[in-house]
């Protein structure tokens, strides 16, 4: 059993779409979960549908949505204060040092983050890389396990099948509530799924009923 799980993603709603079921799985076991959320998704282009946000109101709206989502998930939330879309241009070293201060404090047994270079959004790739850099700096025996999430078009081809696959069907309701808490984003993100690429039921099943990760292999 895990002692503490830390989720490191850059955007409010990454936790909802990517790991809400897995988080619920751990919370039901009584495992504490902390979400280190990098930005407030300030540059998101979804403004609700119909639109109710604008570029200047979006940060505070998404902050409230994030707080609400974390209440649904019953997790401890830390907002790290970076700006959406800019993570890859920040010093990776500085972000890694920043993340390390949280990891030293929280001493997780498991970290969930994005798989660098295989997580589509440049913020995902940059933040995942910084998270892994941070853990690399820890003493070997203090390092948590890392589950890295990949979903680029080529991830299966390049990385093979993920070794961790969580069936989140039992937690579907919580996952759906968590996604719905991100009211400004939910409709747009789900609406952008292209039904031409497959049967919609299959897409939803694939997207929302399993959460998959690769256990990161730290090379000594």
């Amino acid at each position, binding site marked *: 059993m895990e002692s503490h799980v830390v989720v490191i993603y850059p955007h409010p709603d990454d936790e909802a779409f990517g790991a809400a079921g897995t988080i619920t799985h751990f919370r039901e076991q009584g495992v504490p979960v902390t979400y280190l959320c990098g930005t407030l998704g300030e540059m998101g282009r979804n403004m609700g549908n119909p639109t109710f946000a604008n570029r*200047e109101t979006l940060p505070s709206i998404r902050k409230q949505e994030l707080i609400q989502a974390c209440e649904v998930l019953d997790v401890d939330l830390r907002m790290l204060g970076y700006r959406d879309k800019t993570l890859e241009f920040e010093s990776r070293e500085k972000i890694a040092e920043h993340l390390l201060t949280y990891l030293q404090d929280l001493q997780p047994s498991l970290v969930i983050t994005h798989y660098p270079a295989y997580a589509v959004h*440049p913020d995902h790739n940059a933040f995942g890389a910084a998270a892994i850099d941070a853990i690399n700096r820890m003493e070997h025996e203090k390092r948590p396990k890392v589950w890295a999430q990949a979903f680029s078009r080529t991830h299966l081809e390049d990385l093979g099948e993920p070794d961790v696959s969580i069936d989140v069907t039992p937690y579907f309701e919580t996952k759906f509530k968590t996604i719905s808490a991100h009211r400004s984003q939910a409709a747009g993100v789900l609406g952008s799924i*292209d039904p031409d690429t497959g049967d919609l039921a299959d897409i939803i099943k694939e997207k929302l009923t399993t959460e998959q990760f690769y256990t990161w292999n730290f090379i000594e």
Partner: protein
Amino acid sequence: MKTIVTEIVQEKLEQFLNQDVYIHIETTNGAYASHHNAKAYNAGVFMRNATIRYEQAKITGDESSYRIGLKTTNGWVYAEGIRQYEIDNQDRLLLAGHDQEGRLMVALQISATPFSN
């Protein structure tokens, strides 16, 4: 945001004439454009808190797509695809265009004070 009323926007544009103003300008097709459609690729640009001073400003076009042009002392600021506006509680002029799903495609915002970082 509200549907463009050209008279209101034109008047507001002119209130900012000949003074230093802060601009947020942006266009994007989203961070997932190529992920959702292999034939597409991501394109976007934003600039936040550029300071400019313009001496002439006009809104043209129609409800399908308005255009804004600001003539500065040594160049231009241009935005196309504007359909909505808002004058917010900080007296800033926010202009934007969204797609059918409410996703922002273009924004041009003008303020006498800096936009939050």
